[in-house]
C-alpha cells in the first residue's frame, strides 16, 4: 500500500450556520462519526454560511463573494462534508454554476464541488460505513429533506444506518419525501402557506406512530419541531447524526 492510500482522509467540516448557531451537538456528532470512520476532521474558522439565503433571494453577486470565501477556506481538504443536504447541495450543485464563464474560478469551483458530500451519504457511499455502534430504544420516523433527496439522491443511506442502531425501529410515515414547508426564507415570507404545509407533515409524523422524528437538515428539523411543540406533541426531534453517533444526551430540538 502506498503512502497516499494509507494516509487518513482529511475532511473539512462545513458545519453550516444553523448547526453552528443553534445545535452545535450535531457538529460534534458529525465529527465523531467521521473520526470513528478513520478521518481527520478540521473545521476551518473562516466559514460562515453557504450563501443560500442570498442565492435564493436572487442576490448573485453576494452569493459569489461568499462562495469564493468558502472555496478558499476548504479547497485544500480531501473532502468537504456538511451535516445538511441543503447546504451540501448548494456547495456541490450550485457553486460551479455561479462562476460559469469565469475561467479560473469556474475550474476551482468545480474541483471544490467534486469534494463536497453530505455527511450520511459520505459515511456510507465514500467511507463504506455499513453500521454504527449506537443504542437507543424507540420508534423513529425519518423525513427526507428535499435537497438531500432530490439534488443528492439521499434516501437509502440514512435508513440503512438507522437500521443498525440497537433498539431503534424505523416507522415510515406517508409522504416522507414531501417538503416540510421550511424553504429557508419562504417560511417567514409566506408563513401562512408554510404553516399549511408543515401541518400536513406533522399529521403524517404523528400518524406514523413513531415517538422520534429524525432528518438530516436542521432547518427542516427546527420547522417540524417548532410545529410539533406548538401542537403539544411529545415526539422528540433530532438530527439523524446525533442518534448515529450515540450522542443523545442533549435535550431534543425544541426540548421535550
Amino acid at each position: 500500500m502506498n503512502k497516499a492510500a494509507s494516509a487518513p482522509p482529511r475532511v473539512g467540516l462545513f458545519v453550516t450556520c444553523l448547526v453552528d448557531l443553534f445545535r452545535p451537538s450535531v457538529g460534534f456528532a458529525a465529527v465523531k462519526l467521521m473520526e470513528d470512520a478513520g478521518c481527520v476532521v478540521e473545521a476551518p474558522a473562516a466559514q460562515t454560511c453557504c450563501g443560500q439565503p442570498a442565492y435564493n433571494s436572487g442576490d448573485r453577486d453576494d452569493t459569489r463573494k461568499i462562495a469564493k470565501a468558502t472555496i478558499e477556506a476548504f479547497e485544500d481538504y480531501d473532502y468537504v462534508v456538511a451535516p445538511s443536504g441543503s447546504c451540501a447541495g448548494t456547495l456541490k450543485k450550485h457553486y460551479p454554476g455561479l462562476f460559469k464563464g469565469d475561467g479560473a474560478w469556474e475550474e476551482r469551483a468545480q474541483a471544490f464541488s467534486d469534494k463536497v458530500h453530505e455527511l450520511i451519504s459520505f459515511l456510507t457511499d465514500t467511507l463504506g460505513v455499513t453500521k454504527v455502534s449506537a443504542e437507543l430504544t424507540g420508534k423513529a420516523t425519518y423525513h427526507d429533506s428535499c435537497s438531500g433527496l432530490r439534488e443528492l439522491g439521499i434516501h437509502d443511506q440514512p435508513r440503512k444506518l438507522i437500521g443498525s442502531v440497537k433498539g431503534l425501529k424505523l416507522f415510515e410515515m406517508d409522504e416522507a419525501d414531501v417538503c416540510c414547508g421550511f424553504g429557508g426564507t419562504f417560511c417567514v415570507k409566506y408563513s401562512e402557506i408554510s404553516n399549511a404545509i408543515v401541518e400536513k407533515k406533522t399529521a403524517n409524523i404523528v400518524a406514523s406512530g413513531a415517538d422520534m422524528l429524525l432528518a438530516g437538515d436542521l432547518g427542516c428539523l427546527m420547522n417540524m419541531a417548532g410545529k410539533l411543540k406548538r401542537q403539544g406533541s411529545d415526539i422528540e426531534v433530532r438530527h439523524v447524526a446525533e442518534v448515529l453517533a450515540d450522542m443523545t444526551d442533549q435535550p431534543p430540538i425544541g426540548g421535550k
Partner: protein
Amino acid sequence: MQITSPTFKANAHEALHDAQLQRALGNVRSGFIHKRAKAVGALPEFEELRDNAKAIKDHVLEHLDIYLETYEKKVEDAGGKVHWAETAAEARGIILDICRMNNARTVTKGKSMLTEEIELNDFLEASGIQPVETDLGEYIIQLRGEHPSHIIAPAVHLNKDQVEQDFRRVHTEFAQDRDLTEPEQLLSEARQVLRQKYFDADVGITGANFLVAETGTSIIVTNEGNGDLTQTLPRVHIVVASIEKVVPTLDDAAQILRVLARSATGQEASVYTTLSTGPRRDNDPDGPEEYHVILLDNGRSAMLGTEFQDALRCIRCGACINHCPVYHAVGGHAYGWVYPGPIGAVVTPSLVGVDKAGHLPNASTFCGRCESVCPMRIPLPKMMRHWREKEFERGLNPAVARYGLKFWLWFAKRPRLYRLATYLAMPVMGLFGGHKRRFRFLPFAGGWVRYRDLPAPEGRTFMQQWRDRQTINQDARG
C-alpha cells in the same frame, strides 16, 4: 381576465380558509401522484423517454422558424389556412373574422388553455357569439363564471355536491327530483345538454397538443371525446396553438405522447388522440369544410435565447402542479392568472411581467419535486431563481427582506465579526430559551412564531466550542 397575481398572499389566505376548496385539494394530493408513480413504475424506459422528449423539443426550439414555416406549407398543401398572430388581440381578431364570415352564432370549444390566455370566451360573448365549453370540467366552470384552477383538471377546486347544485340551477329542463349523486349521473346529464350544442355550432375551436411539421397535422388528446365532436361536426374548425407546439415528425409526437399521459393522469395514453390534417377531402365521410390554424406568439419568441427558453418545452401535462406542496395548500386560483403551480410561476412573469407576477417565483420552497417529475426536464426551481435575480436587480423585492438579507450578509462576508457577534449572541439567546428549550414569542420572528415555536439555541456556538477543543488538544500534545 383580471390578473390577481399581485395579491397572491391575500388570495392564498382566502384559499387556506375556504373549506370547500381545501376538501377538493385533498383529491389532487392523493389521486394524481399515486397514478403517475404507478404508470412510471410500469415503464422501465420512462427516464430515457424523458431524455428523448426533451431532446426533441430542444431541437425544435433551436430551429423554430424552419419548422413553423414547413408546418404552414404542409397545412396549406392539405387545404387549410395558417394565420400568424403576434398578440392575444390579433388572435382574437382573426378568430372573430372567421366566425363573422361564416355567420357563426355559437361556437363549441375543446379544452384549451391558450384560449384562456387570450380571454376568448369573454371576447366572443361581447361580440354576440356564444362560446360553449364541451370538456366537462370547462363546462362546469363556464356555468359558474369561473376560470380553470388547473391546466388539465379545470374544475379540480370543486366538489361533486357543488357541481350538482350548479346543474340543478342551470339545467331547468330536467325533473327537479332527479338523482345526481353519482359522478356518472352528472356526466350523463352534461352529455345530454351538450349533444345538441355540437350540432348547433357553426364553428368548433380546439387547442393543439402538437403541430406536426412533416404533415401539417394538429393533434389533440382528450379523455371525453368532446374534442372530436367539436372539430368534426361544425362547418369550420379553428385550431388555436402557440408557436412552441410544433414538432418535426409524427414519430416525434408519438414519442412525447408516451410521457404526456403518464405524467398527467397516469394513463398509458389518453382515451382519444385525434389527428387533424386540413379540411374534409372529397371522399371523406365527415369533417369541417374549412380548417384554420392560428399560430400565436404572445410573448413566447421573446423567451427564446433567454434563461427561460427551456420553459417552452412544456407540454402542459400538469405533473409539476400535481406534485407541488404550495399548490396543494392554496389551489390554482390563488396564483392569479391562467397557469398555476410551478410552471405558472415561471411563465406568468414572462407573459404578463414580473412586476405583476413577482410573488409567484418567490412562493416556492424550492423543494424540487416539480423538476423531478417534469417529463420535459424543465429546471423549474432554477428558473424561479432567475426571476428572483431579475427582481433583485430591479429592487422589486420587499424592503424588509432586502434589509434583513443585507444585515445577514454583512456578517456572513466577515467571518471574524460573524464569530464575535455569534459568540456573544447565541449563549444569551440560549439562556432566554429557558428549560423548555424553545420560544413561543420572539421579536422580529413574527412569521415564524405565529405558527410554530422556535427551538432555542443550545448555547455556545459550535465554532466557539471547537476552538476550545483544539486548544485542549494542543495543550495535551504540548
